[in-house]
């Protein structure tokens, strides 16, 4: 069938318009990222030097100073939250994908609802169940709050990624007389690994920037890391405090810290991807 010249011209035009629209949309999406990173960088440039990473905060009015405690705090919080949230999320996702059933659909619904809960609510919840009984704000309660936010995201991405592994590979492995748990560990999980890592990194990036739940749990700490049962500093907390302050130097430091936070997430993400790619050979 040969389309008439007119139809042909119309199809070509539609094609070009749609490609252009896709291109514009892509540009808008990437452009926003560039704008955010660029603007943050520009505003905070005055403070972005080695001292900002290695030094601690100075009293107001003194020039210089840095975010060492906050960086350490964020790394501790995110690390601990990941250590709590990712394994549980992985196992829950595995259950949903491989065993699921009727219980699975209930769990799935609960996980989706949990994903939608505002993080500030999670903060208040952890305040009630952990901070109050412990009698103190702490790194632990902060990490638990972040882990709760992380959990459903990791579980659902793990589930989706494992479901994408074609059934034929599971069947091939089962037909070799390989027990089911081994099929999951050695065939399904490796097949879904890239996606699971991506999902976990997205969850990690999200909690690294969470501020609201930390106000009720980690609180912040100007004197550095003092143990998991003590309040702890965090970059997003400090960004928020500095940003709402009336001082220009603090505003600049908040911008610089924001840039640092973005970079921190980026570095962790790239590192983890590189490590998993390397381990896969």
């Amino acid at each position, binding site marked *: 069938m040969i389309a008439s010249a007119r139809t042909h011209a119309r199809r070509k035009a539609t094609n070009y318009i749609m490609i252009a629209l896709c291109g514009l949309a892509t540009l808008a999406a990437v452009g926003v990222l560039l704008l955010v990173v660029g603007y943050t960088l520009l505003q905070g440039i005055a403070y972005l030097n080695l001292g900002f990473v290695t030094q601690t905060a100075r009293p107001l009015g003194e020039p210089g100073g840095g975010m060492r405690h906050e960086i350490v705090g964020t790394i501790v919080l995110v690390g601990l939250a990941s250590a709590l949230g990712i394994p549980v999320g992985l196992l829950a996702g595995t259950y949903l994908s491989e065993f699921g059933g009727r219980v699975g659909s209930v769990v799935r619904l609960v996980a989706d609802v949990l994903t939608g809960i505002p993080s500030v609510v999670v903060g208040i919840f952890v305040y009630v169940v952990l901070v109050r009984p412990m009698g103190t704000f702490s790194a632990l309660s902060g990490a638990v709050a972040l882990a709760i936010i992380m959990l459903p995201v990791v579980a659902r991405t793990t589930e989706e990624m494992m479901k994408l592994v074609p059934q034929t*590979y599971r*069947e091939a*492995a089962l*037909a*070799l*007389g390989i027990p089911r748990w081994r099929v999951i560990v*050695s065939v399904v999980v490796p*097949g879904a690994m890239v996606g699971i890592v991506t999902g976990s990194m997205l969850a990690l990036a999200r909690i690294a920037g969470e501020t609201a739940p930390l106000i009720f749990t980690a609180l912040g700490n100007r004197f550095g890391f003092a143990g998991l049962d003590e309040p702890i500093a965090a970059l997003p907390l400090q960004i928020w405090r500095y940003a709402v302050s009336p001082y220009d130097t603090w505003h600049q430091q908040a911008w610089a810290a924001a840039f640092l936070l973005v970079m921190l997430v980026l570095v962790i993400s790239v590192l983890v991807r590189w490590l998993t790619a390397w381990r896969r050979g």
Partner: protein
Amino acid sequence: MIREERTPQSEKAAPHSGPCIVSEGLGAWYGSLQALRNISMSILAKRVTAVIGPSGCGKSTFIRCLNRMHEVVPAARVSGKVLLDGEDVYAPGVDPVEVRRRVGMVFQKPNPFPTMSVFDNVAAGLKLNGLRAPGGLAERVEKALRQAALWDEVKDKLKQGGAALSGGQQQRLCIARALAVEPEVLLMDEPCSSLDPIATARIEDLVRELCDRYTIVIVTHNMQQAARVSDMTAFFLMGQDRAGELIEYGETQQVFTNPKDERTEAYITGRFG
């Protein structure tokens, strides 16, 4: 056309050979849909048995019942017996994992594990079962690849991913993978349906070679293929309620040249199906 085809293998089938797998009154369901009804046949040891029939007649379901792969599908169930060397594989207490080690399977589409190298694919059945290969893993992998007539083509790329091979090579890799655990029976579910004629011919030659050591059951859509490779042929047909039934089972030569049932004749002469 089919009748004129040479079937030298039927001559070999002539001396009596004992049954390896016997199905007795086998029925299979997917939920409330019955896919197989009352299949009773005995598959001879170290012979190639072809299962033919139109689409949807339960050929694949039948062979999946033989190594308890049918139950992997949600809501699937089985009735009747399948005797492997005289023991019912559906008896209570029988571990399906154990059955599948003895009855290997090759699938319609080549499905080498994408995250594993050629070597690891073949070794998977042993490694992931924690089985020790006497004489070492490498030797067993080489033996399996040689049996699958793939060794010469892949001996220099054992470390490469299995997915990088051609379709025909991938299917032979899957055969090697199944052979590496040294099963007694090899079930093949339309192993050539996604391959070109040359790759198909290689697999067919392979099937003939392998039946010296293994009992082979091959499902095929292709009647010439059944005539070429098999000693025995079973013809399945869908009943009124869409459940598959065994219409005729006998020596391939007899089934193709002198079918006892008129439906078999109609099918193999191409009048339907």
